[in-house]
């Protein structure tokens, strides 16, 4: 991550009391989705996309990845506490929820989440002290963006 951050240099700005946009939404929803999360926001430009990083009141760090055309192609969060998943996943929330249910029903026992769905990939690692979640839209990821950049 350090190397990635170092390469993000174009601009950094802070927007207090802004929420994140939903997965699959447009960049405008980043601005309009305000107050919901009481989060501070920081935007960094990377090669081929922008990262909007928000730190929620609970301390959970949320990142959303916006393509040059203004599309949110990935969201990620890490921290002890789960952020508002409906807000984060937007129109993909129902697909996520159904897949979590099907995943649970397929087996007994706990293991990291690893959902590869039509048009949606969801992964989560960690344990109750600290989780690391990401969801992305494979078809919407700009060419040249590596999987490990979205986290």
């Amino acid at each position, binding site marked *: 991550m350090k190397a990635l951050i170092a390469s993000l240099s174009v601009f950094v700005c802070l927007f207090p009391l802004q929420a994140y946009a939903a997965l699959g939404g447009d960049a405008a929803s980043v601005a309009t989705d305000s107050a919901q999360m009481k989060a501070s926001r920081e935007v960094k430009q990377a090669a081929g996309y922008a990262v909007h990083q928000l730190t929620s009141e609970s301390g959970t760090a949320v990142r959303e990845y916006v393509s040059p055309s203004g599309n949110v192609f990935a969201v990620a969060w890490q921290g002890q506490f*789960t952020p508002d998943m409906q807000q984060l996943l937007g129109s993909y929330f129902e697909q996520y929820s159904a897949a979590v249910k099907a995943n649970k029903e397929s087996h007994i026992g706990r293991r990291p989440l690893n959902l590869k769905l039509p048009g949606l990939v969801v992964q989560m690692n960690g344990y109750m002290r600290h989780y690391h979640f990401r969801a992305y839209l494979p078809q919407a990821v700009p060419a040249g963006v590596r999987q490990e950049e979205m986290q």
Partner: protein
Amino acid sequence: MGLLAACGGGGSSTQSPPPPPGNNVVALMVNGGPAPGVNYSDAAFTSVIVCAPGSSNCATVDGILVDTGSVGLRLLSSAIPSLSLPVLAGPGNTSYYNCVDFVDGTYLWGPVAQADIEMAGEKASGASFQLIENPTGFSVPTACSQGGVNLDTLNDLGANGILGVGNYPQDCGAACQNSTSPDVYFTCGASGPCSSSTITVAKQVTNPVVGFTTDNNGVIIEMQSVDGESATASGSMIFGIGTESNNALGSAKVYTLNDNGFFTADFNSQTLTESFIDSGSNGYFFPDASITQCPGNSIAPGFYCPANTVSLSAQNVGGNGATGTVNFSVDNAVNDFNNFSSDTAFANLAGPNGGTNCGNGSACGFDWGLPFFFGRNVFVSIDGQAVPSGAPAAPWWAY
């Protein structure tokens, strides 16, 4: 792994003697768990006694999952139908409720209740724990459910409860005393509604071990070794580290944790900075793009299915710089479950974790699940508690 019958037979194992006697030792058993018709493989179960505080009105509950990856006791209310335990009152005419999430999108919801929690000769008096039950008259708040699955039945949980004996004293800590934003604690009226709430640390769902009057700085989990697979596997959980003649740290190597509760595992040229040991994960879970994953519609979704057993090794690196190599193997999980369908202990169960490519500084982890415990004595020290002379400050693992 599907729903298999849990009966004995098959496989082989190294026999170990029964747990040593002691007022700080409880027996552990890998046996498929208490849910009828469900084979919960690679999960260790114990029993606890819960009593109405200060009374002899008690119930013994078995089939409790031992979980080093969470904190606090959580009991299905349906497992103690004849025992009435006081629910923690909140402001006004409300009660405190608790919500915790797991890594697979599942969650547990229910009131915070209090009990004397007894294991072996140890007792945590008036300890807060979670009663797992679905609300009647109102819905689980969406700030808790988050689109996930409520494990509120024996069949869904695969256990009568979870005993969280991880590295921390409460399930939340100061964050939930200072802010409602974690959405871990709620206050609810008798028929709703519920609001996210703060709660003092002292009232939070607690690691029962820190409530003991002695032997309260951690636990040791000692499991027998398993060679391939076994009908069952036995072990013991010893309370305290360096507090009795039977729980000395000895030559075990200590691996300290970072602020997020992780150490690093170096594996296959990947630096996995979010690694942990979790008896509540029923396999090894780590990123390895070269190992075939079992089909999602197979008997073993979420596990690896190499054509032949793969032998691997990783190096754990503690925050204190301690290093140690761990050798392990990965079986074809579909073959394991098909060929040994009545076994419940599998030494070589493993599956993917997160992305398949963890290079370039990305944050990934190695989840050392229950198979890691087979044939080891694993020490779990608890943040803020005393440690043996010469040991680093808690929290840490040692083995």
